[in-house]
């Protein structure tokens, strides 16, 4: 399968990117450091490790997704390796999807690596494995898949620095969309409010993938949300990739 071949090729290239290992190193440091930090709190020590660990996975994972996604496509265009590929008998969408899945695969590997360190530290502390942590990590992965698609979209038409900034903004906005909801409540009903509400529903809600708190505090999670969040992630990603394809098709590679 052509998409598969391109994906594997992308994976091989991405996995050699030094930035990934730098971020991985920082994540590992954070997780191990939290172990030390846990000694300073009074009471439930594991909570700090879990919180720091999940936050590191999420944050460094997002940075990896953005920097890798943006960097890779830019490098292909800049170094002109993309020329050799696009003249082969492949559709442009096959190229784009291949790139996307290659990036997702790389991210999966990196996330697994970080998760192993994280779970090992937790295990060393509590001598048990909590499956809920895996759920939280799984949804972090879904979130990162969406962020990767956004990084890919922006790097189809923008410079790497701008693309990184836009992608980072997407990530931040996605986590603060509830702020928009709070603001809208205080607006008088009318055209402005309707437009704002429309905007609110369009803006990404990355909190849908955020189960970190529930998992750490051992709160009950309604199972419906797993299904809906996953579907949300899938359809938003499809939306972004379609947009990317629309942009990519028309692009000239001089």
């Amino acid at each position, binding site marked *: *399968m*052509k*998409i*598969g071949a391109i994906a594997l090729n992308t994976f091989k290239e991405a996995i050699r990117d030094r930035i990934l290992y730098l971020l991985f190193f920082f994540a590992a440091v954070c997780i191990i450091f939290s172990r030390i930090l846990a000694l*300073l*709190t009074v009471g439930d020590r594991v909570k700090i490790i879990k*919180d720091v660990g999940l936050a590191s996975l999420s944050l460094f994972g997002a940075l990896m997704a953005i920097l890798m996604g943006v960097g890779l496509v830019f490098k292909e265009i800049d170094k002109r390796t993309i020329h050799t590929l696009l003249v082969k*008998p492949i*559709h*442009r*969408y*096959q190229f784009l999807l291949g790139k996307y899945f290659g990036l997702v695969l790389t991210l999966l590997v990196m996330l697994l690596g970080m998760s192993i360190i994280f779970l090992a530290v937790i295990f060393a502390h509590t001598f048990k494995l909590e499956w809920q942590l895996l759920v939280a990590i799984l949804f972090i992965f879904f979130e990162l898949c969406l962020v990767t698609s956004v990084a890919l979209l922006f790097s189809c038409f923008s410079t790497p620095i701008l693309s990184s900034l836009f992608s980072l903004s997407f990530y931040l906005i996605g986590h603060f969309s509830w702020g928009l*909801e*709070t603001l809208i409540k205080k607006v008088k009903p009318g055209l402005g409010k309707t437009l704002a509400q429309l905007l609110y*529903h*369009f803006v990404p*809600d990355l909190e*849908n993938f955020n189960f970190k*708190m*529930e998992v750490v*505090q051992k*709160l*009950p*999670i*309604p199972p*419906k*949300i797993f299904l*809906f*969040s996953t*579907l*949300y992630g899938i*359809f*938003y990603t*499809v*939306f972004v990739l*379609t*947009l990317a*394809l*629309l942009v990519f*098709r028309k692009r000239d590679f001089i």
Partner: protein
Amino acid sequence: MAVRKKSGHGKDFSPIFLAFFLILSCGVFMALKVETDGIIRKKIPGSSIIYIPSGKYLKFATFGYSSLLADIIYVWAIQYYSDYNIPERFEYLDHIFSIISELDLHYLDPYDTGALIAAYEAQDLDLALKLLDKGLEKNPDQWFFPYTGGHYAQMIKKDQKLAQEYYKKAMEVKGAPDILRRLYADSLYKAMDYQSALQAWLEIYQTTTDERVKKIASNHLYRAKATIDIQNIKEAIEKFKQRFGRNPMDLSQLVKAGFLGSLPKDLDGKEYVYVPQTGEVEAPTIWWKR
């Protein structure tokens, strides 16, 4: 993709198809968002803030944007405390407002608002006063904090001594308005420290240039003196009663019997009114009607 695509045109999906697909997926995810919004997830509001050990550490992490962060947390705190659906919201009142003050020592509103919430909503006067104390400590030119502290002590705790301490502190702040001195003097009176009250009012009377204030001070002096005098007289009456088993006929008897050195007169020089049947002593004039 195992079969080679045989498209005569050779282009990928047509733009119309892609645009349609785009709108469709957009519609679906927006609908899903409505769904996920509807699902209620148990939240511990402000849990992330509760979790931070101390504002001191947070300050280092914010790379110099600590005052912005203080603003943000403060605004959030106001929304949080306005939400009456969170019964446990006062548990971290101290913690949250400490963080805000540690992030931005000179942000004045949070001290005041925090104290207000503590005093009236959480019914925790000690916390309110603690916040106000910190406010003054970090901002020694803000007389408003101890003034508010005195106010709360007086109104809510009804602890006049405490109020008096606060008013004194407020009064001593450079640039504090004169009324604070009067509040202080008044609180001394209310704390039943009549001598000090007398002193304080005397000082105000002597140092003020405002006619209206002079009048007020003199009225208060009158009252203070009257109270002291009446107290003394009453003490003497008691002693008289003990000795002679009855109330004196008039106050001069107390002097004759040696229980009073001299017969005190009110500030205007008038004599006190004595009712022998009941033993009540009163000032001839109502102090605030002079």
